[in-house]
């Protein structure tokens, strides 16, 4: 049974189909890459899964349970956490409190204060921010703010993590560290779905890739299959790609 399954997921903005009739399955323990040109509907799909915007047509099931119609906090507590394309951190709060919030509220049931504090500390340790616990979150670098979002998501004890362009705007070193982080999350047994434009990262980290274009799924498969898929090459990598460039 897939950990996350969507059927006929559709969302219109006015007359525009941002996501149109997309079926998808995410297997437990995999790292799935979600790619597509700008405006393809990737983030909208994330927003529909996490209920940031309500799903009106189609259905999504997490761990075999229908989550259509649930609120974001309920979905988070079920074990489905996410990060945001443009970071949404609690800028004026210390780094530690950003993560502590996730530990307090994101898990299933009520957690004791001491337990939440240690969960937050270990999440920060995990992403490599243990040295910055008292810093106001807004003073971190962009790369570290993105790591902070990951730590906050991890503190909610997720089984599935949605990463929305974690590597956007990072330099080469930071991208490599971010790739290592995704692998570490995967090694913990957490299923990952990641939206990414950095091809190097997608190709080396993801076991499987799904391609969206104009809101529709146009391809799906291993990195090798997707990168040699003719439709994908046309819409995504550019229409005239020589073998030598590809």
């Amino acid at each position: 049974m897939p950990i996350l399954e969507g059927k006929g997921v559709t969302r219109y903005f006015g007359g525009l189909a941002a996501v149109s009739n997309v079926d998808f399955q995410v297997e437990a323990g995999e790292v799935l890459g979600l790619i597509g040109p700008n405006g393809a509907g990737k983030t909208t799909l994330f927003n529909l899964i996490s209920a940031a915007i309500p799903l009106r047509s189609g259905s999504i099931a997490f761990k075999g349970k229908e989550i259509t119609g649930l609120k974001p906090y309920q979905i988070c507590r079920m074990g489905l956490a996410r990060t945001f394309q443009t970071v949404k951190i609690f800028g004026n709060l210390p780094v530690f409190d950003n993560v502590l919030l996730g530990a307090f509220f994101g898990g299933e049931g009520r957690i004791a204060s001491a337990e939440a504090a240690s969960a937050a500390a270990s999440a920060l340790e995990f992403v490599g921010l243990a040295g910055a616990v008292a810093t106001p979150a807004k003073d971190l670098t962009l790369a570290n703010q993105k790591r902070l979002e990951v730590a906050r998501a991890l503190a909610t004890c997720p089984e599935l993590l949605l990463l929305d362009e974690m590597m956007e705007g990072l330099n080469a070193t930071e991208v490599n560290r971010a790739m290592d982080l995704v692998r570490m999350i995967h090694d913990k047994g957490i299923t990952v779905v990641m939206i990414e434009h950095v091809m190097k990262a997608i190709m080396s980290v993801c076991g499987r890739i799904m391609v969206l274009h104009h809101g529709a799924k146009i391809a799906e498969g291993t990195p090798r299959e997707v990168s040699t898929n003719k439709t994908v090459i046309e819409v995504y990598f550019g229409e005239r790609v020589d073998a030598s460039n590809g």
Partner: protein
Amino acid sequence: MGMEKTTSKKILTFGLVLLLLVVAAGAPLYAPVYTVILLTSILMYMIIAVSWALFSGPTGYISLASAAFFGAGIYTAAIVGKALPLPLMIGAGALVSACLALLVGALTLRLKGIYFVMFTFGLVELLLHFILWWEVTMSGTTGRVVPPAGNATVFYAMLIILAILVLTVFMIRRSRYGLALSSIGENEEAAAHAGVHVTALKIIVYAVSALFMGAAGAAMATRWTYIDPRIAFNPLVSFVPVLMAIFGGIRPLYGPIIGAAIFTYLEEFLITRFPYYYMLIFGIFMVVAILYMPDGLVGLTQRVWKKMSRRNHADT
């Protein structure tokens, strides 16, 4: 060493607060009646300003419905006042006000920014005119008489309400819910996706803040004795506590308390000394305060303090 310093500072603060409380609590025993009455209105404004800051401070939802919640307490007192003893009357005022906030919160807390501000202020006018209409067409009265309680009694009622409120705010802020409230103010969407039931939290804390405003209203009604809708739902009660909280400093718990004390005293002072120019002086004072003290009096003190201690360190 830093730890020792904060502990000794905490003990000092605690001692000072205790001393102030004892001096204030004894006021009806030694102070003239005028002082007791002035202190009662200071306490009243402290309650409204602190309750306002409890919700609007961390969340950034600027509510202008304080007058509605305060007025609901007053009017409840006026309706049940003849039947119930004072503590129960205050309790009834608090409860009605909290229920009103639950209802209003459920309807409006999905609104953001200026829309929320406007709606909450509209509520004051709506309630005022609804009750005016009700009293004229249904009950055939325009004013009601509340059984008066002594000056000292009202004073102690206010003091007790304030004490419970301060304790409540302190506990909420220290708890996980205090953190959640701040996270809503910082980024509501992220808070929701980190597992916070933002709607429920906002509505409940809004109701808690209204609870205390209603209690203060019910207590105050016994001092005003005659009330009508225009007295009960005075729009100034929505604005003044906000200014007080901003003036004192919204973030720390004692900010609105200090702001309310200075503001109420200043108002009284200006009214008695400069009855014709008091609004003008008051206005200038306010503009200067907002322009030059964005973090309130508390923020200003902290800034000066930091500067001074840095200079001292540089000298040694």
